[in-house]
């Protein structure tokens, strides 16, 4: 009896999650406000009649960011097995960042800015020593 209970508890505690698919869009510079939406379907005996549970993901994300844009959306689909054959589930998670479209674009930081040409690389001005004789002061030229 104890062995059976232990076995059942072990099986109950063990769950497997498989990554089915993942995709992402371009990540924005402004990432201060993350948003998330989830679609979940529990399947008894692996029976699933439709996939309508993911149709509301877009609206859910938009509702969390009503005045802006949701960018950098990471869409992740996972298959979850709670118990072999009997209890399964599918979870689709979409996470992104709410971006204010009216916000001014950020000025690139100094590190990212293109470096100004270094003095060493700049074309050297002709040094006085190397200057041609014609460049001598007019007094010497008179002599």
């Amino acid at each position, binding site marked *: 009896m104890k062995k059976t209970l232990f076995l059942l508890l072990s099986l109950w505690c063990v769950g497997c999650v498989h990554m089915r698919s993942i995709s992402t869009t371009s990540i924005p510079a402004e990432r201060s406000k993350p948003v998330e939406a989830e679609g979940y379907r529990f399947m008894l005996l692996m*029976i699933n009649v439709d996939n309508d549970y993911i149709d509301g993901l877009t609206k859910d994300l*938009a509702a969390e960011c009503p005045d802006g844009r949701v960018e950098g*959306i990471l869409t992740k689909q996972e298959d979850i097995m709670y118990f072999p054959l009997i209890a399964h589930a599918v979870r689709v998670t979409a996470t992104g960042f709410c971006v204010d479209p009216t916000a001014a674009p950020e000025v690139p930081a100094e590190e990212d800015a293109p470096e100004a040409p270094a003095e060493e690389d700049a074309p050297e001005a002709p040094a006085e020593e190397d200057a041609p004789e014609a460049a001598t002061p007019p007094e010497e030229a008179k002599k």
Partner: protein
Amino acid sequence: MVRNPIRNARENTMKISPFTPSRARPVLHMLGVCLLASGCAVLHSVQLGDIDSKTVLNEQPFEIKVSELGLNTEDAIAIGEAIASQAGRGEEAALIGDIIELFQTGPRTGNPTFTKKFSDHVGELLIQECPSGKITGLMAIRETAQYPVVSGEIVRLSGYCAKD
């Protein structure tokens, strides 16, 4: 002759119950037909694009669905073998099935289809659906509607079109 009242009650119950063998058969048949007809939906992948919230919250969504008939080769081969074994050619059918299965290897979603181009024109369909081209909240779904032997291999696009 006095009959046992308990037995009488049992017999009456059996007569009324819908699960008597004679009544259960059509019910089970109907249940089987319903299960076969309903199919099973399998989600292979979901991809969601950037969202302009104002458009999503104010406009009506559109949906484009393209699909192609898929064939479950394992089921088809099993049926073929069963038929052939009645004619005494089960081994030959099994050999043909093995050869067919050899060509079905590799990564894939769903069942093999008879054409690989069934989803190539979704771009044109998107332009038709949203001539302005300002599509937001585009969700691309790859799914399968599974039935015995055959399946519907589906590519579904849903999104929102911003007006000019």
